[in-house]
């Protein structure tokens, strides 16, 4: 979980390993300040995501993931991708769009969607009440929509189709 959280933010495998390692060492040193009455995972996630966001702030660089995406896109012009590859590529493009958001928005989206933490855990991880998580997440989605409209407009028809399919399935099940 710590490595994955770091990877989502720093977008490079080696950097993510360094961030996770650094975060564990900091957590170890800060154990004295940890409130044993509270859950451990959000506390650790908070440290990991803080270290990761600090690390990206000081070193803005073209990520390995973006380069991989560019390579995949070039290759995609010659080879018809299969469904799994296409889904993975779309996933990486959405990930790249999320990276254009402010750090707070990125963190919330990664916590709730990619790491699948509950609202309560996400709230513990960012040190805010659950209500704030809800309102901030809504604002983050609003900003992400704008980023997608401007930079990745081809993802919108896909999103519409996915929503339609989900609603169709839910109607069929009821």
């Amino acid at each position: 979980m710590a490595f994955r959280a770091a990877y989502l933010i720093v977008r490079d495998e080696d950097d993510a390993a360094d961030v996770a390692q650094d975060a564990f060492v900091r957590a170890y040193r800060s154990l004295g300040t940890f409130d044993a009455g509270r859950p451990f995972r959000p506390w650790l996630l908070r440290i990991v995501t803080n270290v990761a966001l600090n690390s990206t702030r000081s070193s803005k660089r073209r990520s390995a993931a973006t380069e991989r995406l560019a390579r995949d896109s070039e290759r995609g012009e010659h080879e018809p991708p299969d469904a799994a590859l296409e889904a993975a590529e779309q996933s990486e493009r959405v990930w790249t769009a999320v990276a254009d958001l402010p750090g707070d928005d990125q963190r919330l989206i990664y916590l709730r969607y990619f790491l699948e933490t509950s609202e309560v855990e996400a709230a513990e991880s960012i040190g805010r009440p659950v209500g704030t998580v809800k309102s901030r997440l809504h604002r983050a989605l609003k900003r992400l929509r704008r980023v997608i409209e401007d930079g990745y407009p081809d993802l919108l028809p896909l999103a519409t189709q996915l929503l339609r399919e989900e609603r169709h399935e839910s109607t069929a099940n009821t």
Partner: protein
Amino acid sequence: MSQQLTPEYGEIDVLLRASARAFAYPKTPNIAARVGIRLDEEARSLTIAASFIERLRAGMARPVLRAAAAVLLVAAVVIASALVVPQSREALADFFGLSHVKIEIGPVLGPPPPILSPGSFAEPATLSSAQERVDFEIRLPVVDGTEMAADAVYVEDRSPGAEVVIAVYEEADFDLYQSANGFFGKGGIPSSDVLLKTDVHGYEAIWISRGGHIASSLDDQGRVVVETLRSVERATLLWEEMGVTYRLETSLSLDEAIRIAESLR
């Protein structure tokens, strides 16, 4: 997760969920082993340092070790002197990595400014009226799940766009400053031994371990707000989180200051 979202954001919600499902993470490396090695190395170097100091103390009578100690002392003096030249100050600021905190090392030159309590340089406010005057979200410490009400709240706004919210906790012995711009500290910070690099929930932080220095706020251009220059009697913890710079002035220990800083909600 998406039940309360409008269709417009429902699309983004469903797109994110599909992306998260299809996302290919690299294989997780053995972080635990790396952490173990690093902690072992740190423990070993501390042991080596402690044993070196012990041996140095024990062997001070021997001429060779006396000479070695003299070399170490000269090196320490050179480093301390280097810290007062501007390039070194810059390097030190880089080392601490806080973009909205400026620190100048050196003695207090000339008569120091007065020691002022927030009530004498900032306007009294309520938490809600202070919140209306700043763009960032004001955060307060939480103890046992309950937000600690401040004994008094002030807003310092000597320069447009440079509002500082100050929550005073007289009983608990700390004042918490919050600003979207930052803070400046100078004088009375004789060397880097008074400064400690630490962290608040992973965010880099600076601990000025004693009072006797001069502090002021920075405006939105990063300039010192001269009207807010004052002497500080207590230790100070400075850190930045998501665009807000915090300054905790206290007589409490570093551990207690960090505990307060990490409880902010």
